[in-house]
C-alpha cells in the first residue's frame, strides 16, 4: 500500500506560464485571477492549464473577488491572482490569508504588468506554508521561477 504524499512543489510548464503571464499583462492594472488546473505527479502538482475568472471587486486594481462556482476546475487545482501595485507584497497579504478559501494559492507579483515573482502557498493545519514554484522545459527538466520576498 502506498501512503498518500503531501504536495511539496508546484510545477508550471512553459506554455501554461506564458498563458498566465499574458492574462496578467492583458488585465493590468486590474488584479487578474483564476485557477490552475493541475495533476498530481508524486509529491508535485503540475499545472495542465489555467481557467481565468472575472474580477468582481468594486475596486479591481486593489482587490480580486469572485465566487467558487462551476467555473472552478476539479481538484487538484491552485487559485492564483496577481498583485498589481508596487506597494503590494510579493507574497500573501492578511486579506489573502483570511479570505482565500482554497488549499493552494499562487501569488503573481506584477507591478508594471510583467510578472516578476511566483509564490505558491499551501494551507497547513493552522497556517499557510510556502511551496517552491518551478518552471518546466520541454525536455521535462525543471528550474526555479523568480521569487521576490
Amino acid at each position, binding site marked *: 500500500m502506498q501512503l498518500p504524499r503531501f504536495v511539496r512543489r508546484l510545477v508550471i510548464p512553459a506554455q501554461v506560464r506564458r498563458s498566465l503571464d499574458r492574462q496578467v499583462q492583458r488585465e493590468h492594472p486590474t488584479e487578474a485571477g483564476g485557477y490552475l488546473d493541475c495533476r498530481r505527479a508524486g509529491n508535485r502538482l503540475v499545472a495542465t492549464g489555467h481557467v481565468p475568472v472575472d474580477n468582481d471587486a468594486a475596486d479591481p486594481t486593489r*482587490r480580486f*473577488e*469572485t465566487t467558487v462556482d462551476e467555473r472552478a476546475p476539479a481538484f487538484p487545482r491552485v487559485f492564483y491572482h496577481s498583485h498589481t501595485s508596487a506597494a503590494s507584497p510579493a507574497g500573501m497579504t492578511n486579506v489573502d490569508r*483570511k479570505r482565500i478559501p*482554497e488549499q493552494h494559492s499562487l501569488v503573481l507579483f506584477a507591478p508594471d504588468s510583467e510578472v516578476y515573482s511566483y509564490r505558491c502557498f499551501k494551507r497547513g493545519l493552522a497556517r499557510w506554508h510556502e511551496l517552491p514554484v518551478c518552471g518546466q522545459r520541454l525536455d521535462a527538466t525543471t528550474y526555479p521561477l523568480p521569487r521576490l520576498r
Partner: protein
Amino acid sequence: MAGLIFWGLIVFLLVMIGVGLFVSKKINGDSVNYIVAGRGLILPLAAATLMAQSLDANATLGNTDLTAQFGFWAGAALPIGLATCLFLTGLFFAKPMNRMNLMTLPDFYRRKYGRVTEVIAALIMVLSFSLLLGGNLVAGGFLFEVFLGTTFTQGVVLISAIIFVYTLTGGLFAVAYTDVIQAVVALTGSVALIVYVALNYGITIPAGMGPANLGQLTDPAQGAYINLATIAALGLGDIVAIDFMERVFAADSPETARKACFTGSAGTVIIGVPFSIVALSSGSILSSIGVEAGEQAVLYVLLQEAVPPWLAVLVLAGIVAASLSTGDGAILGTSAALARNVLGVRDEGSHGETVLADGSGILNEGSDKLLATTRVMMVPITILGAFFAIRVSATGMLLVLAFDVAFAGLLVPLVFGIYKPDIATTPAALAGMLTGSFTRLGFFVLVPTTYGIPNNLLFVQNDIFTASFDGLPTFIAPIVGLAVFLGVAYATKDSYGTRTLDRDGRRTVVAAGEDED
C-alpha cells in the same frame, strides 16, 4: 380482534409500498429529485414529512413506557425535545440552510470547513442514523411479533424490506408522500386514543407523576438530569440531524422551510404528548379491567385489552407509521451522505456507470452517478440497521450515545459557521468536533449508566463518576467542544482565515494586493 388488527396492518403496509412505487416515476433519473425531491416540496408536504420524521417509535412507545414508569416529563421529554428542535431549526436555521442549495447536511461542512471536516461530520451522522434505524426496526419487529404473529427476527426483516423497497425506488418523493399518510394516521390515532380514554376511563394522574410536578425537571433524585438531557440532546442535538435538514433543503423556498418546521413542531407535540397523558392513566385503566402489564409494553397491553379493535388498528398503524417514516428518512439520509460526502460522488451530471449499454440493469438509463451510488449504499445501510436491531442488545443506549456525540461535535461548527463565520476556521471546527465527540465518548466509558441504562458494553470501574452523574455528560461535552472551538478559532482566525459563504452558500474568494480591509 386479532384478525382485524392483522389485516388492518397488512393493508396499511401495502398502501405504503404502493404509494412509494407510484411516485417513483417523479425521480426521472436525477439525484436532486431523489435526495431532495427536486427542491419543490410545498408547505403541506414539507410540514407533514418533518412531523412524521420527528415522531418515531421512541416518541410513541418509548414515551408511554417511560411515562408509566417515571412520570410525565420522563416520557414527554422525547416529543417535547423533538418539537423544540424543529422550532429552533425553523427560527434560526431553516431559511439560511434552504437558501444554500445543499443536498446533504455534510455539504455545509465541506463548503465552510473543507473536505476532512465533511468526511468526519458525515461519518458521525451515518453512525448515529444507522443506530436510529436499528432502534426503529426493533420497535417494528416487536410490533409485528405481537400483532402479526411473526418472530422478532422475521418482523425486523419484514419491516426493513418494506422500507427499503419504497425508499429505494422513490427516494424523498416516496418518503414525503408516504409521510403525509403516516402523519395523518398518527395524528388521528393519537387524538382518537386520548379522546376515547378520557370519555371511557377518565384521565387519572398518579400523585407526583403529572406535568405539574416540576421536580422531574429540577430534582436530580427524580431524574431531572436525565429528563433535561433528553430535551437538550433532542432539542439541540437533532438540529444536526441529516433527515430533518434534508427536508429543509427540499422545501420549495426558505419561507416554506421555516413554516414547515414550525408546523412540524406543533404537530409533534400534538401527536406525542397525548401518548404521555394516556400512559399516566394506564395504571388505573388496567387495574379497573383487572389486567397487569407484566413485561410487555404498556401501550401494547392497553391496545389489546382496553380499547376497541378499530382504535387499536389506528393507533398501531400510527406507531408503525412513526417507525416507517423515521426509518425511510434514516436510510435515505445516511445513504446519500455516504455516497456524496464520504465517497465524494457529486458530479450530478454524469451518467450512471452501472447501466448496461442496452439501457438494462438495475438502474434506469440516464440515472446520474450520485443517484446510482446512493441507491447502492442503501443495501449496506439497511443491512446494518437490521443487524443492529437483531444482534445488538444495547441499541437504545448506543442510539442516545450516538446522538450525544453528534450534539457534542457537530452543533457548534454549524452555529458558528452560519452566525459567526468570521471566526469559524477549519482548525477550530476540527478541534471542536473531535474534542466534543471524544469527551462524550470518554464519559460513556466512565459513567456506569447512560440515560438510566446500565453500561454493560464498555465501563471502566472508578470512584469518581457514579450513576448520579448520568445526564450531565450531555451538557458537559458540547461545552468542552465549544471552549476548544473558540480557543482555536481566535488563535487561527488571522493566520489561517475563514471560508466565507455568500447568501446562496457559495464560497467567496477575496484576494487583495493591499491589506486595508
